[in-house]
């Protein structure tokens, strides 16, 4: 199989996307009779196959042997495969849960699921890309498909706004990033992350002060950070996020705030750790500042929201700040058990199930009572007890209460920050945890503290319930017995850190 085997997940997704596209063209049972659910099932099938392929890569790649390179432009390592597993899991859960939602709201099912698989493909390429041009192309591919998905409900003005806003911000962010890439190419003569890193370490290594074209590295770094920070919804590039999450179809908002964010963080981590290792002194304070601003802005804005969907949107901005904290505290030499990169990966993994779950609850309420307003959650414990309990588990996980995955995520990133003695960063994270608890609890309060709530018992679709249950089990599993996940995470980060020039 060779190189082709290494990119099996990507090939599966490509075939899947094209297959659904062709099927949609060829098979036309007449207006209003298309079954969106069968497209949904096909998408879930292809995503599952891709997931299996990624898991196999995770298992077969020998940590000793080092990463494999496919067609010189993609690095297949445990780091990438772990992120792929995370992303595909999220996409599958979203697919299963979102089928009926999309079916009710749009007639163009084939189109939607084609794009959905293409988005997954784009993310998959992005996390493996080791060449900046491929990084750029993958991010653009991801962006363009995401713009279309965000604005997919053509008759819905909020959805249009979501897509347009995302597009306007996104196109500028991409342009800025491309400029940064060109600066790096000019300074080092290479587009390969590893070569750039080696070139910089050679320059920095022999000179006492920055010489040659290395000075271009800092502006380039900031420009690329702007581009990727936009995808990861870091402050100050996050303004699009709440409007887009809020207006997009909920399945789209779900993956934008989880899988897409995970992909952006993977690219960020690979870029900073492999290409910019020599400038760690420079980027650590920058990322620390971004982390503080992101979590604080996200939390403060979330406090005032009355739409639960929008509140979770802002909260996921804040969560990005915590994840970034792990990247700030990454140790490129002699990684320990509680390394910052481990923290990033563990946090992303736990956060994915938690936040997908939270968005699915929002989706369930949209499906049944057609509202995202907090008043719709009043007395939910009487109308849908399991939904209320599961939402509480997700919210507690987002708060970082033990026995949920979110706790170990926070535990790791705080631990990494303490290890590097960034006490002030950890301290600000601590205060933010308190602020965040306030708005998460507000929803719990609505759901539980009154049993008045109007309306009948909610009839949540079976598929949605299944997805929710999986999210709940995963969240609790990571919280109670994280040992296995920690192993995967450490294998993944060791392999990325081992290639640092």
């Amino acid at each position: 199989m060779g190189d082709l085997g290494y990119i099996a997940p990507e090939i599966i997704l490509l075939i899947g996307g094209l297959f659904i596209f062709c099927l949609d063209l060829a098979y036309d049972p007449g207006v209003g009779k298309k079954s969106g659910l069968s497209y949904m099932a096909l998408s879930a099938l292809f995503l599952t196959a891709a997931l299996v392929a990624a898991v196999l890569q995770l298992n077969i790649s020998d940590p000793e042997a080092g990463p494999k390179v496919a067609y010189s432009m993609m690095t297949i390592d445990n780091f990438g495969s772990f992120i792929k597993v995370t992303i595909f899991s999220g996409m599958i859960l979203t697919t299963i849960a979102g089928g009926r939602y999309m079916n009710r709201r749009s007639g163009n099912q084939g189109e939607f699921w084609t794009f959905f698989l293409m988005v997954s493909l784009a993310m998959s390429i992005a996390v493996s890309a080791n060449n900046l041009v491929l990084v750029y192309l993958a991010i653009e591919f991801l962006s363009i498909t995401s713009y279309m998905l965000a604005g997919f409900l053509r008759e819905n003005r909020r959805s249009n706004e979501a897509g347009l806003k995302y597009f306007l911000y996104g196109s500028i962010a991409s342009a800025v990033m491309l400029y940064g890439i060109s600066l790096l190419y000019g300074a080092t003569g290479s587009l390969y992350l590893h070569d750039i890193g080696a070139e910089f370490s050679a320059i920095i290594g022999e000179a006492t002060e920055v010489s040659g074209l290395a000075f271009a590295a800092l502006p380039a770094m900031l420009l690329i950070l702007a581009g990727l920070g936009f995808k990861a919804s870091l402050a100050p590039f996050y303004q699009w996020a709440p409007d887009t999450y809020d207006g997009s179809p909920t399945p789209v908002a779900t993956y934008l705030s989880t899988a897409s964010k995970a992909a952006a963080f993977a690219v960020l981590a690979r870029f900073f750790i492999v290409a910019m290792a020599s400038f760690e002194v420079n980027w650590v304070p920058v990322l620390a500042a971004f982390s503080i601003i992101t979590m604080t802005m996200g939390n403060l804005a979330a406090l005032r929201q009355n739409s639960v969907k929008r509140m979770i949107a802002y909260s996921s901005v804040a969560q990005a700040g915590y994840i970034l904290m792990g990247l700030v505290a990454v140790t490129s030499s002699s990684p320990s058990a509680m390394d910052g990169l481990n923290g990033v990966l563990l946090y992303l993994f736990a956060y994915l199930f938690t936040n997908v779950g939270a968005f699915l609850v929002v989706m369930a309420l949209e499906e049944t009572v057609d509202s995202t307003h907090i008043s719709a959650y009043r007395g939910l414990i009487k109308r849908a007890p399991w939904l209320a309990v599961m939402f509480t588990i997700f919210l507690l996980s987002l708060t970082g209460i033990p026995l949920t995955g979110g706790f170990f995520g926070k535990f790791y990133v705080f631990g990494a920050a303490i290890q590097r003695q960034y006490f002030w960063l950890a301290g600000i994270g601590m205060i933010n945890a308190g602020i965040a608890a306030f708005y998460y609890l507000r929803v719990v309060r609505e759901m539980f503290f009154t049993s008045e709530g109007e309306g009948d018992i909610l009839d949540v679709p079976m598929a949605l319930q299944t997805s929710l249950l999986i999210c709940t089990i995963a969240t609790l599993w990571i919280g109670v017995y994280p040992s296995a996940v920690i192993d995967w995470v450490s294998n993944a980060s060791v392999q990325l850190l081992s290639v640092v020039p």
Partner: protein
Amino acid sequence: MDSLDSIVLTILLFWPLVAALLVILLGRSDSLIKKGSIWASLLPLGLSIYLLFQYDSGTGGMQFEQVAKWIPQLNAGYHLGVDGLSVPLIFLTTLLSTLSLYYSAGVINERVKEYFFLMHLLEFSMIGVFLALDYVLFYVFWEISLVPMYFLIGIWGGENRGYAATKFFIYTLVGSVAMLLAILGVYFATGTFDIVEAAAAQPFAGNLTLASLAFWGFFFGFAFKVPSFPFHTWLPDAHTEAPTAGSVILAGVLLKLGAYGMLRIMLPSFPEASVYWATWIVGLGAIAIVYGAFVCVAQTDLKRLIAYSSVSHMGYVMLGIGAAAAVMTPDALAGAVNRFGLSAQAIQDSAAMALNGAALQMFNHGIITGALFFLVGIIYERAHSRDLSRFGGLATKTPHFYGLMLTAAFASLGLPGLAGFWAELFTFRGAFAIMPYWAAFGTIGIVITAVYILYRIIQNVFLGEYDPSKLSHWTTVQGEHADGPTDMVGFEKVTMWPLIVAMFLIGIYPTPLVSYFNQSARELLAFVQNLV
């Protein structure tokens, strides 16, 4: 019984969780849930009595230890154990849990399944905190104790319950996260999450700045829970709004978790920082005693009054802990010998006495304030008011209630012959030798306590002429109309009497209880003296 001893702690810990799950899975009817819950809670109570008898005070140290792997990558394990400090506190936890479940069965008729589920979950987390000897495990239980209490206040509480529950949760959460950071600091300094091993490795020894940072991190976590002045502001709200059993558990056990943490973690792990900051702890404790007592005098709500009395009474605990902390290290001990002209042995005895007083006060406060909150609940069920100005002359109408309230109130005031006396005596006797001025200041609180107990509670509620016009809507405990106050009924008496008996027993013959605490206090002091 060797096979039982090797797993007794695990059974004790997880049985309430099993009970909680059974309530959810099998709880078909309310009466089944209530009966089953009460019966189920007898097992942990029995096991904790078994521990009381089986714990060997002569040998001391950690006993019944259990170790298993949990997160080997981080060196965090499932490590349980009990010593002379935790054995009585576990008994207190299981006793109050059983009594609370029993009492709640009589008064809770709404959302019964959730209520009993949460009560079992709460017991699980509290027992976990007292058993855990691993920082991660400790933190896990510490944090999950928040969740059931949050719901108990929020669902079955009074009018302002949402506010009170959220305040309770956020205050303690912020404190806990500070503690989490300190735990991580200890981990990176020692490489282990094991509480005993980490203390033996003395994190940050010789680096007072870092040790103080960690010390204050833990202190914030614990002080919010105790609650120490000025971190106490959540307490009156939480207590006033909480349902009766919630208040009992909150005052009886949850507040003890903070003081327990100080004794278990802060003093042995950071002796130098403890000595350095001891005056602060003593000062905060003494201020809490006096301030809390003064605030009590001004209260018009009976339950709020008892809540503030907790602030005052937990101040004794802080006073005792701080006084002992001040002379823990050999250097500090030598300094104290020079200052006071006493022998080193006399100072050490005083320190041990202060620690004993603090631990005894933890236990007694649990019994006494638990009883007081039950009593407030009993009268509230009838009067549907806690406004002190609307009561009066109840002594003749409700003699049984009067008698029990009188006993509990006098125990709280520190009357010799009842439990509270010994704790106050030991704490002040110990602290006088080490921190005479603060201890003297603290004694003002004892006088003010007499004022609010005698004047606000006894005189206001029970003495004088009964005036029917003050409060017209009396009901029986079942909610039926009544012409006036009715006396306690069977299930209320059964709830109360074990606590009253305990107050007398400890008051007359405290030696068995003190011997547990003394053992661990001596060990703590010897541990630090030998280490530094």
